[in-house]
């Protein structure tokens, strides 16, 4: 479903700020795989997501989604294959537009924008049902501006928008990091449900090692732009936080583990 072949990316090449953010990374996800991604700050987790999403072109290597080579496609063209939820709740939705308008736009992801009306009557009913599945009461506030919603509500809405038009690949970049623990748990629950209901191929970045272990069937660890650990199946199921910590140390990245990661994982 997703095939990353030996990609590299260096930011600000040739300046004193030169930063090799991705160093020959390869990764293949099968249809329906749910892969969690962990790593310290600056390990390149967001960068690998951005590379897949086409925010900028990679320096070398290629990326295939559903067997199609998308390496040369720009961000908005790749959007038809991808659903994305970002770390910052402000980024995934248009604050000054209504909830339905946001959903209607997401429902047309990857389609040509015509001069037909932006939200049809039938869509209202469909979206009401969809919003009800979130259990946040948003179905009664469909014409409210998204800017009035809380961060958690906006993330849940973004998740819905990313998945309502079945994406070939769902990219979640620390999408619960900005939320309080209870809301985060709720959004994660919704994530699990939506992913399994639709059998979505998913990549989820998290800094919480426990979440990384509990969710999904695959786990990769990044450090300094490289993939240093890749487990799946039984081995992944039997992982312990201590195992991951040891892996970090082995990679010489012990000091990379932020307190945040350890603390959150101990809860």
């Amino acid at each position, binding site marked *: 479903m997703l095939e990353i072949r030996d990609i590299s990316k260096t930011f600000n090449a040739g300046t004193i700020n030169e930063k090799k953010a991705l160093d020959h990374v390869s990764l293949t996800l099968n249809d329906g795989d749910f892969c969690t991604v962990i790593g310290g700050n600056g390990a390149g987790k967001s960068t690998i997501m951005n590379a897949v999403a086409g925010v900028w072109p990679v320096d070398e290597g290629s990326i295939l989604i559903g067997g199609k080579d998308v390496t040369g496609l720009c961000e908005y063209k790749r959007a038809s294959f991808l659903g994305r939820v970002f770390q910052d709740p402000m980024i995934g939705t248009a604050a000054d*537009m209504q909830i339905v308008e946001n959903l209607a736009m997401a429902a047309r992801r990857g389609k040509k*924008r015509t001069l037909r009306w932006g939200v049809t009557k039938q869509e209202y009913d469909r979206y009401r049902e969809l919003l009800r599945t979130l259990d946040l009461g948003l179905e009664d506030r469909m014409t409210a501006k998204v800017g009035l919603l809380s961060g958690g509500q906006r993330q849940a809405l973004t998740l819905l928008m990313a998945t309502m038009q079945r994406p070939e690949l769902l990219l979640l970049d620390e999408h619960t990091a900005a939320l309080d623990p209870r809301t985060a748990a709720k959004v994660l629950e919704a994530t699990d449900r939506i992913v399994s209901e639709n059998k979505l191929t998913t990549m989820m970045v998290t800094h919480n090692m426990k979440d990384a272990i509990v969710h999904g069937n695959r786990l990769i660890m990044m450090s300094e732009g490289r993939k240093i650990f890749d487990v799946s199946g039984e081995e992944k199921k039997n992982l312990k936080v201590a195992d991951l910590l040891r892996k970090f140390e082995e990679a010489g990245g012990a000091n990379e583990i932020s307190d945040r990661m350890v603390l959150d994982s101990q809860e």
Partner: protein
Amino acid sequence: MLMYLASLNPIALFRSCPGGIAQGLIWGIMALGVFITFRMLNFADLTVDGSFATGGAVCIMLLLQGWNPEIALFFSFLAGVACGLVTGIFHTVFGIPDILAGILTQISLWSINLVNILGKANQAINAGTMKLRITSNFIYMPRTILILFICCAVIVVIMYWYLGTEHGSALRATGINPQMTRAQGINTDVMKVVGLALSNGLVALSGGMLSQYQGFADINMGRGAIVIGLAAVIIGEVIGMSIFGKRMNFMLRLSFVVAGSIIYYLVYVLVLWLKFPADEMKLLTAIVVAIFLAVPYLKGKSANSFGALARRNAKLAKQKQNDGKEEGSC
């Protein structure tokens, strides 16, 4: 003072009101164009000072060559679209920041208007001999106002429709959150160019109408147009919000842009009647726009400022103290 008051002629004020309304309607179309860039695309587009004059110049030159006035206006619109395209390409293809991209087009247009279109600083038509539907001739004023009113109404309806379509929604989203918009598969660069083209098309159409109304085009007719457009947008918003508050829907928002422009020109007429020097009108407009832009910002800031918090807390503490005293005295 008394002599000043005695010199004011109420009948003159009454007679100049229709002209104010007509000009307000003409500039209202211009303001609707500014609304697209300023409010929808979140793009501070300074092209308009140039494209407004281009619209006027194109219209007058075509009229001088015997073209039909309505067709001339259509070509003014097209000329404006071209101006917007240029700014859009400067910005999206060459990565020039929005304000600078607009200024570059505006400055180039000044030369183009002077050298390539008008050929001299101003060109006049003999309005009396032409069958113009938009004219400042006092006899035809009711008809002119009616026609302009219908034009504004039609443009408001078309804009309401367009901005509600899939395409228009994508344009609005581009102005609000380009990152999210791209993630929905929308080419934000194209949307910006489309918005700029439509906006400047309306601005130039308005310039064409003004040149018909006043019977001439002048290379300086667009100077400061952006400020007048902004004034209309902002005055309309403030008044609309104070009347309708939360019930202000999108149709009303658009209508109040035109209303804001009419109010601006009525105030203009009044200020001139009070013998305020016309040359200082631009200064006055700039001050009004600055105040209207600053007030919402300062209001938001004072509601969220540390100073205000300290004052509120001090007040509460004082109240408590007073309450305590009263209890004690009982």
